[in-house]
């Protein structure tokens, strides 16, 4: 089984962000980068599938500047066989522009599965996976929380609001992976050593023309500072009064 996993380098979300002078991007000073949360789940799903159903290979692909190579090496250390960087000075916000570049790379790859995280944690849009599937003309299931694959056929579960869908699909297919499906493994020392010798190819990204662009970014208006109105059950009548008369939500 041959599986491609498309992963994105995103800032560590635990950090305090500030806005750069151009008002369109984050101040890069002190930013640390890592693999997107959902992309980590997708890579783990791919590695487990190949381990259980081998022989096969897992290819990690990332679009972005040379900074993505460190994350691709991490993917190789986790167990991917090879990596591809689609080089672009910056990653556009437009999912379709990205999907076009990925489709060019994936089109003739002979992949049985192409996996994505449900969304990147930075742009939080979740559009690139299904768009890439459409451009490739492949079946696609998004936001999967459970997956079974056998004999060229797959069954997946998608969580909805208050319900879940069971979905069947044929391979080859594009899948986007939700949280909770598989905890990403830590790279072993042996894996880290081996990753240094695995192939990492760099190609120019053939991005589509971006038609969804960032006008400006801002930090959200701070909520008014929190207020503790009292301690213990004796504070309950005051809370109910405030909810009725001040917040007017009861």
């Amino acid at each position, binding site marked *: 089984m041959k599986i491609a996993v498309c992963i994105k380098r995103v800032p560590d*979300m635990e950090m305090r*962000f500030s806005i750069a002078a151009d008002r369109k991007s984050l101040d890069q000073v002190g930013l640390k980068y890592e693999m997107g*949360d959902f992309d980590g789940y997708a890579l783990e799903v791919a590695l487990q599938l190949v381990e259980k159903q081998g022989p096969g290979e897992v290819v990690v692909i990332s679009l972005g500047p040379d900074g993505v190579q460190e994350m691709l090496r991490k993917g190789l250390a986790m167990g991917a066989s090879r990596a591809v960087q689609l080089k672009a000075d910056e990653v556009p916000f*437009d*999912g*379709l522009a990205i999907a076009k570049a990925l489709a060019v790379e994936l089109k003739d790859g002979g992949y049985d599965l192409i996996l994505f995280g449900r969304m990147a*944690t*930075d*742009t*939080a*849009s*979740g*559009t690139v*996976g*299904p*768009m890439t*599937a*459409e451009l490739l003309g492949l*079946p*696609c*299931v*998004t*936001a999967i*929380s459970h997956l079974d694959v056998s004999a060229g056929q797959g069954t997946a579960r998608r969580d*909805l*609001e*208050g*319900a*879940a*869908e*069971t*979905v*069947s*699909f*044929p391979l080859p297919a594009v899948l986007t992976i939700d949280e*909770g499906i598989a905890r990403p493994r830590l790279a072993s020392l042996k894996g880290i050593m081996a990753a240094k010798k695995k192939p990492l190819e760099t190609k120019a990204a053939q991005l589509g023309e971006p*038609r*969804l662009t*960032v*006008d400006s*970014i*801002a*930090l*959200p208006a701070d*909520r*008014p500072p*929190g*207020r*503790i*109105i009292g*301690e*213990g*059950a004796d504070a*309950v*009548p005051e809370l*109910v009064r405030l*909810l009725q008369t001040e*917040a007017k*939500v*009861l």
Partner: protein
Amino acid sequence: MANMLAFAESREGALRKVAFETVSAARSAADASGGGEVHALLVGAPGIAARADELGRYGADVVIVAEHAALDHYSPEVYAATTADRLRAGGYRAGLFAASAQGRDLSPRVAARLGVSLASDVIDFEIQADAVIARHPAYTGKVIVTLRLTGEPALVAIRPGAIAPVEQPRTVRVEAAAPAMDPASARVRVTAVTQGGNSRLDIGEASVIVSGGRGLRAAENFKLVEDLADAIGNAAVGATRAVTDDGWRPATDQIGQTGRLVSPDLYVAIGISGAIQHLAGMRTAKTIVAINKDKDAPIFKVADYGIVGDLFEIIPRLTEEIRRVRGGH
């Protein structure tokens, strides 16, 4: 004057609340453009056409109904083909979706089929002559991005709960349309839909959410949370990631960066410390109440009203007090 297409989401033959939100948003956008028409697209099994009038109540002028006996469940390929065809043929300025589980699946497929871009998970937007300007929370809600979307039709998926549905009744014209693809030839098939958790109101649809964290100590103590939700009425029950990871509550109840993003009128956080991952999912709630024994818990930094203390004493008292004031009406 610009016409808008609103995709009206349904499940199991009933419209979802987000359908009214999407139609309302389309109505506002059409009116702001000088009074275009709002067309709502409704896809489903035979009988779904009976829901058209409900869409008229929220401002749809035309409801296009594509029924097929094999569309008991959502079919991504049939829905995408049908929506893309209609957008292509109809000369719409914009196509609007909900950024719900279904809308997030459907809207990017439609965008790629049409070769247009999509602004997803938008909290508000404005249609200008040559662009749509949309605001979208990103970076776990820590940054608000203002996006410029060019091209026609402009596709926008709106975060559930971000735009309140407003009744603006119209007399609807119903147009029947055939699905643009035979469901029998679909490769991706939804074979079953199972209701998750309990029959309680869904967290995406509720104006009040009562949520519990590790502070509740055990799954069975969620009874306290449920009782409070019942006393408030029209309230859903949510949970933190720690709680759903431990299997105390179904994964679909998880509120946070990796779960659901919600914006209710009232959010009650019980025994929740307020990790960044959780705050990312609920910090846009209008009013936040927190009850926690640790006065230094980060949840108190965002809570409009906090009570420090033992939730096992406070919550039953709060439930009783709300029942009392409610009973007095």
